[in-house]
C-alpha cells in the first residue's frame, strides 16, 4: 500500500507519454478522418533523427527537436499531398496506403541500420527527483509537461485563431466549410503536417527514454489508437485525459495484478467505456455515428 503514490506518479508520467504520442494522431484522425497506421513510424523517424543529431553533432534531443519535428512535419505534408489526397474518395484505400507506408518506413530504417538498437544515454536520462519512495524521472516529467503545454496550446489554437476555427469547421462539416470558402485541401495538408510534426516531437522527447529500433513505432501505435478513441474523436483534452487514464490503469494493473495482463486490462476497460459512452469520454455525443460516409 505504501507504493500507491509511486504507482500513481508512474501512471501519470506514462500517461504523459501516451498522450504525447496520441496528440498528432488525434488531430489527423479527428480532422481528416483516416486511420493513419504509419503514425508510429513518424514517431520513430523523430527518434532516429534526434539520435543521428546527437551522434553526429552532439546535440541534445531537446535542441534538435526544433529541426527534427518540422522535418517530420514536412514529410507529413508530402504524405498527405502525394498519397492521401488522391485517395480522398476511397477512405479504405487510404488505410491500405498508410499500411504500405508503415511497411516502407519500418523496413527502410531496418535496411539502413541493420536492426541494431540505438540509444541516447547521457546524463539527462538519469536525473530523478526523489520524494521518499516516489521517484519522478526528469525526462518523463518533461514529457508530461510538454504534453500538457501542447494540449493547452492546441486547444487555444483551435478555439481562438482563425486557422484553428477553419480546422474545426472542416472537422464538423467538410462540405459546408468548402461552401464557406475554406480551402479544405490546404487545411488537410496543414493538419497532417502538424500531426506529423507532433509525432516527430514525441519521438524527440522519447529519445532519452527508449532504445530505438525500426519497429518501435509499433509498440506505441495500439495504445495511441485506443487513447484517441477513448478520449473522443477530435477532442484535444479527450486525448490528454485518455492518455492519463490509460497510463494510470496500466500502472496499477501492472503492479497490483500482473505485468503480463496489464495490456489486456486496459483494453478491456477501453471496450467497456466504448460500450457505455460510444463517443468516447469527451467526444461529442453522436460522433461515433460518423462513418466514412459523412465526409463525402
Amino acid at each position, binding site marked *: 500500500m505504501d507504493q500507491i503514490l509511486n*504507482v500513481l506518479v508512474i501512471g501519470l508520467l506514462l500517461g504523459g507519454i501516451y498522450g504525447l504520442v496520441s496528440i498528432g494522431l488525434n488531430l489527423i484522425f479527428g480532422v481528416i478522418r483516416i486511420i493513419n497506421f504509419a503514425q508510429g513510424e513518424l514517431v520513430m523517424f523523430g527518434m532516429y533523427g534526434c539520435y543521428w543529431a546527437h551522434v553526429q553533432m552532439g546535440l541534445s534531443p531537446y535542441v534538435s527537436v526544433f529541426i527534427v519535428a518540422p522535418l517530420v512535419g514536412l514529410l507529413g505534408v508530402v504524405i498527405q499531398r502525394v498519397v492521401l489526397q488522391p485517395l480522398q474518395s476511397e477512405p479504405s484505400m487510404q488505410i491500405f496506403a498508410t499500411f504500405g507506408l508503415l511497411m516502407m518506413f519500418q523496413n527502410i530504417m531496418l535496411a539502413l541500420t541493420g536492426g541494431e538498437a*540505438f540509444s541516447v544515454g547521457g546524463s539527462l536520462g538519469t536525473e530523478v527527483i526523489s520524494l521518499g519512495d516516489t521517484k519522478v524521472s526528469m525526462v518523463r516529467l518533461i514529457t508530461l509537461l510538454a504534453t500538457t503545454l501542447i494540449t493547452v496550446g492546441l486547444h487555444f489554437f483551435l478555439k481562438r485563431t482563425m486557422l484553428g476555427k477553419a480546422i474545426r469547421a472542416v472537422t464538423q462539416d467538410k462540405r459546408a466549410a468548402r461552401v464557406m470558402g475554406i480551402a479544405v485541401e490546404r487545411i488537410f495538408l496543414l493538419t497532417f503536417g502538424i500531426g506529423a510534426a507532433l509525432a516527430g516531437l514525441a519521438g524527440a522527447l522519447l529519445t532519452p*527514454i527508449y532504445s530505438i529500433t525500426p519497429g518501435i513505432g509499433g509498440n506505441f501505435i495500439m495504445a495511441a489508437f485506443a487513447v484517441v478513441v477513448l478520449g473522443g474523436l477530435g477532442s484535444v483534452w479527450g486525448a490528454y485525459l485518455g492518455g492519463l487514464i490509460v497510463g494510470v490503469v496500466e500502472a496499477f494493473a501492472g503492479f497490483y495484478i500482473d505485468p*503480463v495482463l496489464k495490456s489486456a486490462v486496459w483494453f478491456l476497460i477501453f471496450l467497456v467505456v466504448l460500450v457505455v459512452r460510444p463517443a468516447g469520454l469527451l467526444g461529442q455525443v453522436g460522433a461515433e455515428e460518423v462513418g466514412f460516409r459523412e465526409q463525402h
Partner: protein
Amino acid sequence: MKKSTALAGIALASVVSLVSTANAQTIKIGAINPYSGPLALYGTEVTRGYEIAVDQLNASGGLLGKKVELIRGDATNPQQGIATVEQLVTREKVDLLLGTYVSGISMTASDAAMRYNKLYWETNAVFQTLTERGLPNFIRSGPDGNVFAVTSSKVVRDLIAPALKKDIKDVKVWLESEDSVYGTGVAKAQKQLLTEMGAQVVGVGAHSWKSIDLNDTVLRAKQANPDILIQTGYVPDGNLMLRTIREQGWKPSAILFVGTGDTPETLEAVGASYLEGVLVVGYPRNDIKDSYGPGNKAYLAAYQAKYKKDPIAPQGMAAFSGAQILFESIKAAGSVDPDKVRAAAQKLDKPEGTYASGFGAKFDDKMQNTRASFTASQWQSGAMVTVYPKEAVLPNVTLKPLGRP
C-alpha cells in the same frame, strides 16, 4: 546413320555426365535465418558464423572432396520457414539445411525438411521441444534452453553467492523474463534448479519485450527484496529494465542477464559506469582462454577480416563451432544422408574445449549435444569480460563488485 547417331549419343551422354558431375562438385547448404524483420541483426550474425566455417572448410579441401556452397534462405515466421525450405530444396537443390536463430521457425522448417529427408542441423535455437519431438532428421549442436538455466544457476551458486558472502540457502532470487516461449521456458527451468540448490526464489515475473514501461515489473521485484535479479529477455526490454532500476533507485546486490545484454546496444543505453558489475550468461565470447575454446581468437580475426568490424554478438561463434561439428559428422558418415550423419554424430565423443566456443561433441539419443555450455561475463569498464567457468577465464581477470554504483 546408326554409327553417327551412336556417336552423337555418346557425345551427348558425356556432355550430360560432365554437366551433372560439375553440379555434383559442390555440396549446397541452405542457411535458414531471419535476414529481415526485427531479428535480422542476430540472424545475419549467426549465418556469418556459418560463412566463416565454410570458408575455412573450402580452404582446406572442402567436404567429401567437394566445395561447399552456402545459400541463404530468409524466414521471419513459421509460415515462411516452410516456404523457404521448399525454395531451398526444390529450387536451389540444397543437400542439407543449417539454422536457426528463432525456435518457431526451426520448428516448421525442420519439419518441412523431413518431408524431403534432408538433414536439419540446428546450431542456435534453444526450444526444448525441437529435440524432444524426436524428428529423425534434426540434430542440435548448440545448447538448449535448459542449459541457460543450468549455467545461470551455477553462476548463482559458484560465483555470486561467494561474492556476496552468503550461503546458497540464504540467497534470495527474483526471476524475470520476457513472456514468449524463450523467456518463460528458461525461467521455469531456472526456478526448478535454483530451488533444488536450496536458494529462495522470492518471485517469478514476466513482461512483454516490447513493453513501453517496466516500472511495475521493477517495483514488484524490488518489493520482494531479492539479493539477485535474473532477467532473461531481449535487448529493448533489458535496456529499459536497467534504466528503470536506476530510476527507481533500486540497488540489488547482483544483476544477472541471461541471453542478451552483452552487446554495445546495452552499453550505449545505460553507459559504462552504471553497467559496471552486471553479469551476463550467454554464448562464449572471444576473450576466453584458448585451452577452453581453441581457435576463438582465430575466429575473431577471420570475422574482422571478412566483415571489417567486430562481431556483433557471440551467437555467431556458437554457430561457427556448430557448423564445424556438422562438417565432422558428414566426413565421418561419408555422406549427407540424415540417417548416416545421425549415426556418425552419435559416435562422436569430443571433450568440452574442442571447438572455438568451448563446445565438445556428445549427442544424447534425442540428438542434443550434451557438451555445449554457456559462459558468464561481467561488464568491466565498458567491456564484456568472461568470468565463468574458471576454465575459460583469462589469468589476469578478477570479478569486480556486483552491486549497483
